[in-house]
């Protein structure tokens, strides 16, 4: 700061404000518990920084208009859109942007009615429930059905747009869905695109990230992969990623659930022997290799292992 005679302007301790907001641990938790997703984390940091600076501006009496925080999350299945949306409520709450830390997660069925006059009250009901928090609309493109011109989805969209515009301070709307379909949805509802400030794209995970996700998932459930199983799972991931209907982290979770099932069967079939806590925690290579995905090239492996 230049040395002048005038009294220094009131200085602001950004670091102290950051620590006081309690958003630091949330961002760290995000980094720790969510693997990959670099663009997503960057955008969340940007939003957090903006909100913090706005708060400081307000404290100093500078004008700080309520920023629009409606978001759209696009990405392939299993890339963590819902998980991040749930975190979003926590982050925005800590920054004081939303009043309560709650997320209302809905799909088309919750918003759109079945007969004339059913949609508006239904949508309003949900909006009222979400007020003060975050409204998460999963697979938002189903709201708009161009093939049926008498579809009531349009009515829900109109109410949503109105509330998103007029009651910005009361709720944050997060739309989520697969990228290509969301693109078409925004194309036919330009009002939505312009009212959403943050379009966040969720990238697919690479094999290394999926492996770390698997380990995090298992650690959370007090399981672990044996060294052999680790190698097998890496091979499994490689094979699975090239197959159709690969759903990133969701496929990993399903694969692990099946492995747990097979582990339980193995333990049960060997029930003559004493079982240690170690046995209950460890997933062996066989459990991974038994998967249908590795069926072609890994079929002999279990027999080898047994021999």
């Amino acid at each position: 700061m230049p040395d002048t005679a005038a009294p220094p302007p009131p200085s602001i301790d950004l670091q102290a404000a950051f620590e006081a907001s309690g958003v630091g641990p949330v961002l760290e938790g995000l980094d720790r518990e969510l693997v990959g997703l670099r663009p997503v984390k960057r955008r969340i940091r940007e939003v957090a920084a903006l909100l913090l600076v706005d708060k400081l501006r307000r404290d100093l009496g500078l004008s700080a208009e309520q920023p629009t925080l409606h978001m759209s999350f696009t990405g392939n299945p299993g890339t963590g859109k819902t998980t991040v949306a749930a975190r979003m409520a926590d982050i925005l709450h800590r920054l004081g942007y939303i009043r309560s830390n709650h997320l209302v997660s809905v799909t088309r069925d919750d918003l759109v009615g079945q007969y004339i006059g059913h949609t508006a009250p239904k949508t309003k009901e949900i909006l009222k429930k979400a007020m003060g928090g975050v409204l998460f609309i999963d697979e938002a493109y189903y709201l708009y059905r161009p093939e049926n011109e008498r579809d009531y989805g349009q009515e829900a969209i109109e109410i949503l747009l109105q509330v998103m515009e007029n009651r910005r301070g009361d709720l944050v709307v997060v739309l989520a869905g697969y990228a290509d379909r969301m693109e078409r949805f925004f194309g036919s509802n330009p009002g939505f695109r312009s009212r959403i400030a943050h379009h966040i794209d969720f990238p697919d995970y690479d094999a290394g990230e999926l492996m770390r996700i698997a380990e995090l998932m298992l650690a959370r459930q007090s399981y672990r992969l044996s060294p052999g199983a680790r190698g097998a799972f890496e091979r499994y991931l490689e094979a699975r990623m090239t197959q159709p209907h690969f759903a990133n982290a969701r496929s990993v979770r399903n694969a692990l659930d099946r492995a747990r099932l097979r582990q339980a069967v193995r333990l049960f079939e060997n029930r003559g022997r004493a079982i240690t806590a170690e046995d209950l925690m460890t997933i062996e290579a066989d459990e991974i290799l038994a998967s249908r995905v590795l069926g072609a090239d890994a079929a002999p492996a279990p027999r080898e292992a047994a021999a």
Partner: protein
Amino acid sequence: MRITQGTFSFLPDLTDDQIKAQVAYCQGNGWAVNIEFTDDPHPRNTYWDMWGNPMFDLKDPAGVMYELAECRKVHGGRAYIRVSAFDASPGWESLRLSFITDRPKEEPGFTLERQEGDGRRINYTTRAYAADKPAGERY
């Protein structure tokens, strides 16, 4: 004549911020908040018309304030509007808090009626001046 009914009835009418704070308190206790209106001010008239359904599962007063604003658009200045909070924890919905938020611009008050019965017995009753007119045209 200013009608007093429910909680806070001897205080000046609550401001929107005060209503909001009360609603937040109710929701913090897990009570469902309901909006009702009527144009029959008789104190024994317990059956007010409901403005929509009671608002269960709301976490924030903004939803209630939105409905209150909607109700005022239709009935504001022409009816009484009250906010009630119901507690379901006893196993049925029981009223915990109820206060009038809006009242008609003019409240003409009540007349005392005397009815002579057998043996010069007198029955007393009150009747709102407003109730002389048909429902919907009272205020």
